[in-house]
């Protein structure tokens, strides 16, 4: 999952970036509205966490610009002023949810995960595709009720595919979303991880939860 942190206070921005990275997110950081607006328009981000009170161009303007350009990734706003006026303005500009400062990271994370789930069309924290169940809150995966141990990267890969269940996800997209932009990119690595994931989820190769579409990518069947 590629997440944009738009926050002008460096300490808070870096803390958020580090905490989200620890949770397996790929992070883009921006410290002002202009930079943030550009990142949202140009990078293939999945969700943005936006501080409203930015110097220069405000977070609101950035959100409006994204929405105007047809970008519909979810946006979570961080507000320091806990007034309904500000919340309503932010949500009206195109944001999807808000968190009031100061906050606990767990709360921000929960909201981000809920928004991602919702943008994938899932309304429950538990995502079920066939025998595979993914709990976005506990970050747990169960197959037919049995817990499966996954590495952080494997979990992120499965989560990304399951949130987009029913859609074909290309290897290029997976590389882009799951790796930091400066990392070496090698689509073979994705193939290796998909192979490992299949073995862990379906050791006997009966369920086949992840389908390969030659030359196009991978798909997890919905339902």
């Amino acid at each position, binding site marked *: 999952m590629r997440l944009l942190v738009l926050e002008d206070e460096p300490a808070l921005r870096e803390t958020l970036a580090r905490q989200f990275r620890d949770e397996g997110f790929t992070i883009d950081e921006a410290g002002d509205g202009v930079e943030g607006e550009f990142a949202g328009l140009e990078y293939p981000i999945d969700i943005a966490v936006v501080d409203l009170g930015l110097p220069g161009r405000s977070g609101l303007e950035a959100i409006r610009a994204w929405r105007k350009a047809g970008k519909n990734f979810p946006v979570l706003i961080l507000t320091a002023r*806990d*007034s309904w006026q500000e*919340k309503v303005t932010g*949500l*009206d500009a195109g944001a999807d*949810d808000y968190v009031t400062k*100061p906050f606990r990271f767990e709360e921000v994370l929960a909201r981000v995960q809920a928004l991602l789930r*919702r943008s994938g069309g899932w*309304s429950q924290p538990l995502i079920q595709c066939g025998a595979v169940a993914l709990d976005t809150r506990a970050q747990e995966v169960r197959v037919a009720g049995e817990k499966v141990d996954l590495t952080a990267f494997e979990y992120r890969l499965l989560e990304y595919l399951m949130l987009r269940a029913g859609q074909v996800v290309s290897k290029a997209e997976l590389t882009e979303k799951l790796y930091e932009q400066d990392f070496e990119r090698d689509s073979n690595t994705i193939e290796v991880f998909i192979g490992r994931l299949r073995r862990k989820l379906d050791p006997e190769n009966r369920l086949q939860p992840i389908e390969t579409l030659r030359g196009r990518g991978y798909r997890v069947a919905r339902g």
Partner: protein
Amino acid sequence: MARPVPSLQSRLVLTLAAVLLVAAGAAAWSLDALYRNLGLRAQQDVLDAQVIALISSAEIGADGRLVPQNLAEPRLATPGSGLYAEIEGASGSWRSPSAVGSGLAFIAAPKPGERRFEHVRLSDGTRVLALSLGVHWEPETGAARDYVIRAAQSLEPWYAQLLRVRAGLVTGFLLLGLLLLGGLAVALRVSLGPLRRLEREISDIEAGRRESLGSGWPRELSGVTGNLNALLVGERKRLERYRTTLGNLAHSLKTPLAAIRGLLERGESAPAALEPQLDRMQAIVQHQLKRAVFGGSGATVADHAVLEPLEQLRAALAKVYADKGIRMTLAAAPGTAYPIDAGDLLELAGNLMDNACKYCRSAVAIRATPWTAAEWRRPGFVLEVEDDGSGIAPAERARVLERGVRADETVAGQGIGLSVAREIAAAYSGTLEIGESRLGGARVCLRLPGR
């Protein structure tokens, strides 16, 4: 420095003085013109009568001159009397004895049957009005001849009278104008009295000698004084609230501060040990900030149509609670409006609606209606927010509204919304009641009185 603005009184008096001057001038001028025309007409009538008298007594003499046989008007016989006559003919003229040495010279030479008036001057400068009448005389014997019969009268006595009348007119109008202006000044003084009283009472309020404006204002001022009093009450409440908030904030931060100091003194510096205290301080700050938010702008005069902000809130909450799939219905009686700060309205309704969304199962109903009473010029406002959650037990209700008065005495984040809403409502002299909803959950009713 700004130019001093002229007082209302001097504005009124100066304007009225100018108007009076023009009006009185016009009135005096037209009266004078009327009098002048009538006077001139009378003078002309006198001359007409003289000419007719001359004709009736005139006869043609042997020398062919037309001469009056007897002078009925003694003034014609008296030199310098002011009344003159002349009969001019082809064979010579007759002049009244009064015209001797007067230097009277007529200019008009009317044809027979023609009548002409003219203004001429005598040699001593006397202004005279003259009438010349051309006649075609046919005697019983002899040939017909043309004559001009003239009469003239000095205008000086009449002019002197005209001047006296004019002096009277000017004096009269000046006196009338002064009387009117004086009366106006008195009327202004009397009617502006309440304004001076208002000024005095406001400066008393500034000086702290009184709390609010008294009663018994004239109808034109009662709106202003009523609003001023409402503003004063609002400001006082706001000030009180700030004081309380500040006091509460400072007071409630003391406990965690003391705890941290204690921890540090014990040599405890692990982040985990400090965390509960930090959480507590954070909760306190958040709580008190939430209370301090409302009434920020202080502008409470504009009537706010309530539907639009409620719609905004509904759209915002629908996003925030998208997962719950809440059916949120919103009904506002058309034209429901209330003079409230826009931020306060959002805060009030936002807290109530957020609460309902938080505790409902799947349905929230919001209804806004005006609240009218005979003694209010502006209606009040009722907002009902209902949900289908598990409701609030009767025993809990009072406590929920009081909850979080002191953040350090309660669990942070629990139901602060309702007590904040209650405080905002109180700032507008309103009330908040909790009851049971037909939907099955809680029904929170906010009532803001009219004015």
